[in-house]
């Protein structure tokens, strides 16, 4: 499908032809969205803001995984471990070196990028299932490291950490921390969108689409396959650090393989190879349990509830819904929510015609 642009939308410079949001309306819509998001703490309650914060932190990490899986065509089933490493590293940096938390977050991202680079080295040689197993090893090695390195993680007891504070203002409530997360979300997503319209972003996609011809075009395959892991881990580290300074407590068992699978689910449901899709996928995965909970509450006390014991089995129900939604997406919308969104937009533009 060729990108649809409205009649009369003329571009008179190359700069105007390279913008992230192609039309004036889409730019206005995005700015309006950010303004609306800024107003959210005035309207929404703490619980809802907490959900939004989760969507933001997970969305950043999911974007990292999407750069690796969606854009570069590799696989990682150890993403949660990198997410955890960022969380621990930020907490550790703050406690050991008394670096302001707001600086610890990007530093944790860089530290995680280095770890990701090391675990990404096999990617220079391995592909497909073999790479999947290598990243599985990263998941278990890091999990084991978290449990043993008490100086770094506090061991099995976990590690407490502090709120973000800038110039005496402490971001200790959902209403204020929301802005920190929003700021990082905008920065990281704009960064990824920019990356994808420049040399190294194109090189990553070229490696995914046809690595043999990418090599002939002068692209160093081993370098870009490893770099992709570093970028992906950078995003995971930032997401993890934001998560740590929201919950104020980081515990080892949170970053297990199930969590890694959930990240994969986010990028598949959101849309592989779509920057915005990562956020949509994270939103889907955060809101799905809420929807399940609401449904169960609706059915409470009824015949279905009594026979199936919904209330008691709510946690299983959530897992099953996650699994079911992955399967349904793979069957009915393998390109994810981002693609569905594009179809909806095209439908509005073309109505009443179908093409």
């Amino acid at each position, binding site marked *: 499908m060729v*990108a649809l642009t409205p009649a009369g939308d003329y571009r008179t410079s190359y700069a105007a032809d390279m913008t992230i949001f192609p039309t004036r309306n889409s730019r206005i819509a995005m700015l309006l969205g950010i303004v609306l998001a800024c107003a959210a703490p005035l309207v929404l309650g703490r619980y809802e803001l907490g959900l939004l914060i989760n969507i933001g932190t997970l969305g950043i990490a999911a974007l990292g995984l999407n750069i690796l899986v969606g854009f570069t065509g590799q696989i990682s089933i150890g993403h949660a471990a990198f997410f955890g490493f960022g969380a621990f590293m930020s907490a550790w940096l703050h406690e050991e070196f008394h670096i302001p938390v707001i600086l610890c977050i990007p530093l944790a991202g860089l530290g995680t990028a280095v770890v990701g680079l090391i675990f990404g080295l096999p990617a220079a040689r391995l592909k497909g299932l073999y790479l999947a197993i290598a990243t599985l090893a990263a998941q278990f090695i890091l999990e084991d490291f978290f449990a043993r390195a008490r100086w770094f993680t506090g061991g099995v007891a976990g590690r407490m950490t502090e709120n973000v504070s800038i110039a005496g203002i402490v971001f200790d409530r959902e209403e204020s921390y929301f802005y920190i997360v929003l700021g990082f979300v905008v920065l990281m997503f704009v960064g*990824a969108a920019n990356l994808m319209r*420049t*040399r190294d972003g*194109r090189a990553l*996609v070229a490696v995914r689409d046809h690595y*043999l011809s990418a090599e*002939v*075009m002068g692209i160093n*395959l081993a370098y870009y396959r490893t770099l992709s892991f570093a970028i992906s881990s950078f995003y995971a580290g930032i997401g993890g650090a934001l998560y740590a300074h929201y919950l104020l407590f980081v515990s080892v068992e949170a970053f297990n393989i199930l969590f890694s699978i959930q990240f994969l689910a986010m990028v598949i449901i959101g849309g592989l190879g779509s920057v915005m899709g990562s956020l949509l996928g994270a939103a889907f995965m955060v809101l799905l349990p809420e929807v399940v909970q609401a449904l169960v509450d609706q059915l409470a006390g009824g015949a279905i509830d009594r026979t199936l014991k919904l209330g008691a089995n709510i946690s299983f129900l959530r897992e099953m819904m996650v699994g079911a939604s992955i399967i349904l997406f793979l069957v009915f919308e393998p390109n994810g929510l981002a693609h569905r969104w594009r179809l909806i937009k095209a439908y509005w533009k073309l109505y009443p015609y179908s093409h």
Partner: protein
Amino acid sequence: MGEDAPILAADHVSLRFGGVRALTDVSFSVNRGEIFSIIGPNGAGKTSMVNCISGRYRPTEGSILWQGRDITRVATNRRAALGIGRTFQNLALFGHMSVLDNIMVGRHHLLSSGVVQGMLWWLGGAQREEIAHRREVEEIIDFLEIQAVRKAPAGTLSYGLRKRVELARAMALKPQLILLDEPMAGMNLEEKEDMARFIVDLNEEWGMTVLMIEHDMGVVMDISTRVMVLDFGRQIAIGSPEEVMAHPRVRSAYLGEEVEA
């Protein structure tokens, strides 16, 4: 060595896969400014020869010389910066990228923005660089008459257009030598005429030396400066199109005639 040495030379190149001898002791040189064609029946080793030059295969014996310098062991991805571009026999575009992005990938070795500059776009000079290169890429797009499909995903194009986009991508490397592996295979007459014109123009106006594999004898004989014929991995003739056409072993390879004496 510099300017007088041939732009490319193959020196007694042999290539074996286990017991299969894809190339046996092939030597030739391509002079700057030529259109040099390699012809031969199926399985003659033409694509293997091009793969040895572009770095996909490493010759079992012999060496590839680039302007007098031995590049047999130079990594594939470094040959783009040397000035070697190529297209593929079976299309090898980046299917999900737009035509424009495909061609911009060809600029890879000429661009310098890394990840950080890329992410910062406005601040690190990445935007300026992209615009400068976009301008040059648009010249290639104009030349190959693919303006209408610039933003279309490459995987959705027709076969003839894809071949053209692939040529555009190879041209974007700014190669001194461009390797074309069957640029006209599967095209109709009109598309072939267009492609032949593009090849002649990029040779004469853009100053690229062309090394081409092609099966269409009419085109080969029309536009080539020199022709080399391979059969079963061996060089059986090399010379001007007329000489090669008259060569008895070529006639035997193509028409199955007995070679006298």
